[in-house]
Structure formats: C-alpha cells, structure tokens
C-alpha cells in the first residue's frame, strides 16, 4: 500500500544544528496488515510515521501511496490524502480540551461538510463499539487515560480511513489498558485496515496481532522483519 524509497529526512537543514533523523529508508508497508516499527528513542520511528501519514515531506526520496508518488504534492493535496486515508492515534492522545468526547470525535470530519446527523450517528456507533457511549457528553479532560485513548481511536476512525497510524499507543497505559488496546487493534485489523504503529513495548511488538516488526536504529532500518 505504501512504498518508501531512498527516504532521508533532515531537521534544521543548512544550519549548524542540522540533524538527519532518517538516513536512507527503503520499505514497503503491506495493505491490510499490522506493521510495527521498533527501536530505541531517536531511532527515527516517529519521523517515519509522520512521512507515511503525510504530516511532513521527506527531504530526499519518494513516498508512494498505492503506486502514486505523493512526496512532492502541495500541502492541500497532502491534507486531503491525510484526511481520507489515515486515522491517527497520538501518544499524548492530542484531544482538544473543553470539547466533549463526541465533539472531539467528529472534528476530523468537519472539512468534509458531511451532514451533522450522519456524523453524530457514526460517532455514537464508534463510541458504543468501544464501550464509551455513556461518556459521550463528558469533556475530554474529565476522562481517564484509557477513556481518552478510546476517544482518540474513535476520532481516528470517524472518516473511515483505510490505514490507522498509532505512535507509541501503549506508552501512557497500564498493562490492563494496554491489553484492552491490543484487543481493539485486533478488531481493527479484522476489519481489514492497514495498521502502522511504533512501539518498544513487548506487549505490542510480541503480540500475535502484529504481522511484521521492523527494527530501526539511528535513522536506518536494521531488520525488515
């Protein structure tokens, strides 16, 4: 589904503190599979996720989505692809405080201009599937860590994306909640979604749900899995 070739990514390019986070990545991420990027801090996992998810562009190299080169597309088109193709689950959840769970969930669908009723129905179904229906009107800052993550998952799924990208999804969860997350992940994989995540939590990378583990270190892939 996604092919990366010769990917390099620099930060502060041309300045005294220039730093190459990725240094020649060639990787193909298969559709309908769960792929995990594993590696220590600073290995370039999150940077790679941002490139795959169209949150940033590579300094060098090409990103192809369904054989179409998207690395040189203008920002507007990247946003469109990001909204249509990817759902994001961030490590810090990144929910907007002051809004309710339901309002947070439907936010990614605002730019699509779909009728509000349809959006609300879909959001409520997602909340019910994740056993969070009773918290729909609660402000997100009142929710527990596990509940916040489930809201973040619902938000990632509101536009019915083909792929879900999760950055260190269990980093802020205890073992019990981490296991619950893995169960949700299994369900998502079962629906045929492509899942790409980063983690160094053995509970995730050693799970049967994960089809492939890619090991990274110092901005390069050391084991393609």
């Amino acid at each position, binding site marked *: 589904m996604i092919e990366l070739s010769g990917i390099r990514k620099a930060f502060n390019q041309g300045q005294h503190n220039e730093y190459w986070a990725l240094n020649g990545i060639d990787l193909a991420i298969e559709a309908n599979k769960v792929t995990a990027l594993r590696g220590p801090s600073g290995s370039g996992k*999150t*940077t790679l*996720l*941002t490139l795959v998810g169209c*949150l*940033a*562009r590579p300094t060098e190299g090409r990103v192809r989505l369904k054989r179409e080169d998207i690395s040189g597309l203008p*920002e*507007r088109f990247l*946003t469109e692809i*990001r*909204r249509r193709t990817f759902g*994001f689950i*961030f*490590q*810090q959840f*990144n*929910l*907007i*405080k*002051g*809004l309710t769970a339901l*309002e947070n969930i439907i*936010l*990614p669908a*605002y*730019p*699509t*201009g*779909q*009728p*509000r009723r349809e959006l609300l129905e879909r959001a409520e179904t997602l909340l019910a599937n994740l056993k969070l229906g009773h918290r729909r009107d609660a402000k997100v800052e009142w929710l527990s860590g596990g509940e916040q993550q489930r809201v973040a998952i619902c*938000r990632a799924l509101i*536009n019915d994306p083909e792929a879900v990208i999760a*950055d260190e999804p269990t980093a802020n969860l205890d073992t019990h909640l981490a296991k619950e997350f893995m169960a949700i992940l299994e369900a998502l994989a079962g629906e045929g979604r492509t899942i790409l995540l980063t983690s160094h939590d053995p509970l995730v990378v050693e799970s049967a749900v994960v089809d492939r583990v890619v090991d990274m270190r110092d901005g390069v892939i050391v084991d393609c899995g």
Partner: protein
Amino acid sequence: MKQWIEKQRYLIDFTLASLARRKTRNLGLLGVYILLVFVLASVALYTHALRIEAGKVLAASPEVILQRLVAGRHDLIPPGYIDRVGRIRGVQKKEGRLWGYYYDAVVKANYTFMVPNAGGVEKGEIVVGPALERSRGLAAGNGISFRSYSGKLHTFIVADVLPQASELVSADLVLMHEEDFRAFFDYPSGHFTDIALTVANPLEVRNVALKLSAALPDSRPILRDEVLRTYASIFDWREGIVLALLSAAILAFGILAWEKASGLSADEKREIGILKAIGWETGDIIKMKFWEGLLISLTAFLVGFVAAYLHVFYYAATLFEPVLKGWSVLYPRFQLTPHIDGLQVATLFFFTVFPYAAAVLVPIWKAAITDPDAVMRG
C-alpha cells in the same frame, strides 16, 4: 453547495465553541475593546452633532454682522451710522441690533440681554432661556428683578420661556422690549450694539463685506460662514484636546488588545497542530480564526458604538460634557439631534476592526503554515 454550507456551519460552530472555551480571556478582551470604541465613538459623535447643531442654529442668523470699532475695540453704533451704510447691491435688509451681557450675582452667571428685531415682547415683560428658567426657578407669569449697573432695580414679568430645542444658543438668553433694554443699561437713544445685514446670494456675501470695509473703515464685518468656521474649529480643538488627554489610555488599551490578539498561547498553537494533523486545511484554520477575530471586533464595534450613541444622544454625553461643551456656568441642558456621518463610522470601523483582524491573522497564518508533525512529538 450543501456540503460547502455545512462546512461553514461547522467552522462557525467550532469558532463559537472555541470562544466559549477561553471565556475569561475573550470577555476581558471584548470589554477593553468595547471601552476603546465607546470612547472614540462618543467623542466623534458628540463633536460632530455639536457642529451640525451650530450650523442649524446659525442658519437663521444674518449673513453679515457689522460692528463698529474704536481703538480696535467693539463700540456702539452711533445714530445715523446705519444710513452711512447706504445702498449696497445684494443687501436685502439692514437693521440695528441691541444686546448686552448682564452678570447675575445671585446665580453667579452671565445672561445675554437682547431685543428681538421682530418685536413680540411687551414693555415690562421678558422671555427667558431654559437655563434661566431652571437656575432662577422661573415660570411664565412670575416676576423677577434685576439690579442694573447703575444700581437701580428693574422688575419684569416672565411672559414665556424659550423652547428647549434651541437651548444650545438660547440657554442664557433674556429677550426684552427696546425701551426696557435702553432703560436698564442706560443705553443712549439711537445707538445700537451692531448692525445685521441680510444678503440673499451667498456668493455676494464677500463682496458685500469688502464694500462695507471700504465704505466704513472704522467697522468690522463678521460673516456667518466665518462664525460657523470658528465654531467648527473650536469643536475640532476640543475634540483634539479630549483625544490628546485620552491618547495614553487609548494607546494602552490598543497595546493590550493587540498583545492579546496577536499572542498565540501554547494551547492555541497545540490546537492548530492537532487540527492540521487530523485533516484540517491551513485555509480552514485561518478562516476559523479570522471568524473568531471578526466576531470579537464586530461585537465590540457594534456594542461600543451603540453605547456611545446612547451616551451622546440620550444621556447628553455626561462623561465628556464639561470638556466638549465648554460653557462656563450655565450649562445648557439639551438633547442633540441624532446624526451619524457615514464616513466617520467607516473611519472608526477601519481603525478599530481592521487592525484587530490583522493582528489575529498574522500569528495564526504563521502557526498554520508549519508542518503538523510537531503534534506527533507531544
């Protein structure tokens, strides 16, 4: 089209929710902003209405007033002087006027005593202005005595009180019969205070004044247009003084509003990053924030302007009255005719709403064009 409308609805919804979420900050900003518009609009509306009022009042006054000067000071018009004016083309009417000032020690105020040329005031009677009616508690039919400069006491019956509508110039006016006036001030018979000339064609007024100066070198013609211009510059000057006095406060308010509007909090920056990451376009975010700024500044402008309108036209500009009106003792109490100048409103709008909208947009634009990958890193 339906999708577009729905999208705009979402944007406005989110904008309103976003404003409500930062209630304290936005209400504080709105309060400061309203105060700024209120002060500026009050001063502008008040001085403009005064200028209009003065113009209306002077519309009925003669085009040229001729005063006689002795050693550069205003002196009485001696008998036969009016005839020396002779026949000047364009002058429809010329008549001597009688008026003078009287200091009333009881209320420590100056009155203007005047003889109406059209007559209408019987001997022994006076017609008084509304301020006199208030300060001396007078009503039609009451008697009042004034001690003249020669020490004699003169008693008059109040025949009528002048209408409130003309109070701007008639507040301290006392109209009386010619004989009473001459007796009260020991005014020599046949003398007048000045001469009023009516000129029908406004283009002729200057020529008439030049001919008068040539024919009567010891006289000074005063044109109505010049009086109007003087009034206008007095009100302009007062407006300037008020604005100068308030400029420090206005500047402080302005800086505060700018600072509040242009500084993006870490929370807001994070929010912009999240919205971009989950699929909002840069344009959507700028539009949303623009609506937010426009909503605040428009609300402030409308509330501030309406408050200023009420303050000036319904509460007689209580806050700025002493400086802007400038009467010494007998403050005329009058309702200004509501009058709004489109250009003035547009100028005020431009200088209050536009800078705010710009102040909001620049930092938002800067934050919105950056890559959204920062949210990934918490």
